């Protein structure tokens, strides 16, 4: 239906009437019912929290609302009128915009072009771009969220967090574009943001409250409770509960989400055993790569988790890449069990017994088109070789064994890895390394990014087991809380240098504040 028609609708709508009503929406994917007769409503000027485990259907619901994927049945009513759109453009004309979890930006064009993409409007006159106008309009959006990003900048030159902000600015553009108040869908917008960026974001959401309606999805339950007016909980594709944030807390929320309570020892801190003093598994000495990091030195004992804290650009990512041979260091050396290791390429790192669990598992952790078993043995095919030949029987056994040990939910070990849920994919990209008994060091690059509480807990448990197994682990994490809780020791990096080292024994964990003040 046309925007004008909606205007009439909005005109006659009573104040408290829902701007968006989802009625019995159902959506099937091969092998799974993602949405099962979902019904909910979004009131005007409210922030609606949406929580649930991975695979609970949150993202699917948002995608249906945003016109990315059509629903199989049920209907969506926008401002009292049934919505007829079946693509993103249509949804936007109806006033519904979405910030996507996996970033939806074009790397090779300017920020301005991205923000105005598909809605250049007056910035294109008689088919010709007016660049100054385009940049001006983009700037307006960027100012809304106080993003210090130049509209003329090439998008790929921005940091991940900066891109996330551009993403948000892009969606806010809807405000001007349509003559009704926009409906903004935020799918885990905070996942990769740094602390102060998250603050700006929430400030922004507060502002949106006055002029728009927001659906906010996040795995950080405290965030959700903090920002939302109401919270819907989803499970197995159904809406199972509606809560008032003021009267409920994280534990209750979690209880409903997973059907079991959030155990007191969420991070299994009790499980944390202090490693016996021993020859360090991994010893990094005076590692230097100009313009990336300077003179980085630290030791990691067997069974020890070394957390590296730092903001974007602190150089901690680059250090990890160097450890895995993805980035060559200029000077300094890396010792494994006291012996210097040459890590010019990931291949050599794997040979040396170093594993790397990437943050972006979909494009770096697993191979979607290949089977679970094939993914597991990819890095250590020698485990299932008989002579030169792959022993499928052995491979099957190995795969089954690790599917059980990590409780990976999968129809069969020959199922395509791409069909697994996020949590199970993460377990798989861990299993890929665990199948090797030669593994000495494991680099965990944001191991719980985008995972739900349940999956996170399992990953934490796993980390504890691994340290018992005598593995040395280097951890980069999204949240300080996680870093502190999981690590035995923490080094804080800033501008490519180590600025502080803290011990984090189970008994006496440092406070977040203590770490943060060193970071910034």
């Amino acid at each position, binding site marked *: 239906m046309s925007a004008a028609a909606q205007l009439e609708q909005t005109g006659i709508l009573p104040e408290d009437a829902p701007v968006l009503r989802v009625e019995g929406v159902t959506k099937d994917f091969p092998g799974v019912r993602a949405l099962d007769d979902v019904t909910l409503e979004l009131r005007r000027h409210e922030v609606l929290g949406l929580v649930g485990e991975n695979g609970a259907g949150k993202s699917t619901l948002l995608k249906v609302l945003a016109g*990315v994927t059509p629903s199989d049945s049920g209907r969506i009513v926008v401002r009292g009128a049934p919505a007829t759109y079946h*693509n*993103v*453009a*249509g*949804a*936007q004309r109806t006033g519904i915009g979405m910030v*996507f979890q996996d970033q*939806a*930006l*074009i*790397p*090779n*064009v300017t920020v301005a*072009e991205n923000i105005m*993409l*598909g*809605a*250049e409007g007056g910035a*294109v006159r008689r*088919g*010709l*771009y007016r660049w100054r106008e385009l940049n001006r309009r983009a700037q307006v959006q960027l100012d809304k969220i106080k993003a210090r990003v130049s509209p003329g900048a090439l998008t790929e*030159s921005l940091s*991940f967090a900066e891109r996330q902000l551009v993403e948000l600015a892009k969606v806010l553009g809807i405000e001007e574009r349509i003559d009704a108040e926009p409906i903004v869908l935020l799918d885990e917008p905070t996942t990769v943001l740094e602390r102060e960026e998250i603050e700006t974001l929430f400030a922004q959401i507060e502002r949106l409250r006055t002029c728009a309606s927001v659906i906010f999805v996040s795995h950080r339950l405290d965030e959700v409770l903090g920002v939302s007016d109401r919270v819907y909980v989803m499970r197995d594709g159904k809406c199972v509960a509606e809560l008032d944030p003021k009267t409920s807390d994280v534990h209750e929320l979690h209880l409903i989400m997973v059907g079991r309570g959030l155990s007191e020892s969420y991070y299994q801190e009790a499980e944390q055993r202090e490693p016996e003093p021993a020859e360090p598994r991994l010893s990094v000495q005076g590692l230097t790569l100009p*313009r*990336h990091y300077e003179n980085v030195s630290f030791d990691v004992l067997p069974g020890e988790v070394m957390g590296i804290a730092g903001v974007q650009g602190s150089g901690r*990512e*680059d250090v990890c*890449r160097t450890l895995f*041979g*993805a*980035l*060559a260091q200029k000077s300094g050396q890396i010792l494994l069990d006291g012996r210097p290791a040459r890590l010019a*390429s*990931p291949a050599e790192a794997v040979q040396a017994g170093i594993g*790397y669990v*990437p*943050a*972006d598992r979909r*494009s*770096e952790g697993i191979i979607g088109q290949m089977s679970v078993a094939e993914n597991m043995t990819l890095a250590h095919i020698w485990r299932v070789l008989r002579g030169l030949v792959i022993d499928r029987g052995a491979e099957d056994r190995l795969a089954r064994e690790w599917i059980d040990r990590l409780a990976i939910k999968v129809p069969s070990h020959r199922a395509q890895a791409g069909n697994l849920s996020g949590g199970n994919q993460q377990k798989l990209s861990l299993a890929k390394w665990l199948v090797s008994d030669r593994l000495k060091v494991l680099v965990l*690059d*944001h191991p719980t990014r985008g995972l739900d509480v349940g999956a996170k807990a399992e990953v934490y448990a796993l980390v504890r087991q691994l340290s018992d197994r005598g593995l040395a682990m280097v951890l980069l994490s999204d949240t300080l809380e996680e870093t502190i809780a999981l690590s035995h020791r923490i080094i804080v990096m800033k501008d490519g240098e180590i600025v502080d080292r803290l011990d984090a024994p189970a008994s006496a964990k440092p406070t977040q504040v203590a770490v943060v003040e060193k970071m910034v």
Partner: protein
Amino acid sequence: MTVNVGVSAAPARSPWQGRAAEFARTRGSLIALIVLVVAFTAGNPRFVSLQNIHSIADAAAIVAVVAVGQTFVILMGAIDLSVEGVMSVSGVTISLLVANDRNSLDLGLLAIPVVLALGALIGFAAGVANTRLRIPSFMATLGFWAIGLGAATVLFGGSPPIIEQQSFLDIGLGHIFGFTKISYIALAVVLFAWVLQRYTRFGRYAYVIGGDESVARLSGINVDRYKILIFTFSGTMFALASILATSELGVGDANTGTGYLFTAITAVVIGGTLLSGGRGGIMQTLIGSLVIAVIVNGMILVGINPLAQQGIEGAIILLAVALTGWPLRRPLRVIK
């Protein structure tokens, strides 16, 4: 033939590296061109004689027009192999539509828009096959290559129609300040294409689609429409190139297009446009076309053994592309 750089695993390039890479990619071809010119001039001073410059310009002109069409297709990450088919059928058709010794249609210069439309039509069909039938552009256009050649053979009917339209032949033979009109037309085409690339959705969306097609769709862009448009445009450019070539040849030749496909793609690639799409542009393609023309012309001027010429051309091209791409090299960079 796709490039993707890991978000987290691929090391972020430090600014200066980025600039060096950008410089190499955008200016490298220009440097290569200069080096070649200097080298060949050393080999034979005649190389920079005005007359030779004219002949280089003419040689580069038609390639440039083909390459312009190809550039937009490659920018969006696809490829158009129908070049020789479209050129051949257009060449024969135009010769049959202007005054010729075969029939008495004689549409005069009106034939030009007609043939351009023919090229556009084939391009459009290829685009539809690509977007609607969902056949990779590589295969779809491969098919239209054969179809074009077939149609040309049928129309050709045994002997080349000889063109008697003086005004048409004049395009290829007439000179302005020593350069043939072809060169000027080619230049105009390049400038026009540059405006398209810089100031229109057509051009910008070519980059966008090359950058990330699915995102483009998410942003509500009618990707298929622009893809079809771009193939239509490339088809038109191939037809235009064929018209120019024919006006120069003076007859309708069923093999007008022979050799232009790889030459044009090479021109685009040497210019620094990545086959994976999203990077590059028209002006670089122009330089690329000149590089090719210079190589071919120069090898003859310095008198290189004909047997070795294609090999040396290949080597130079590889060298040029490798060197201009050198600073772009990064561990974990994926090039297919």
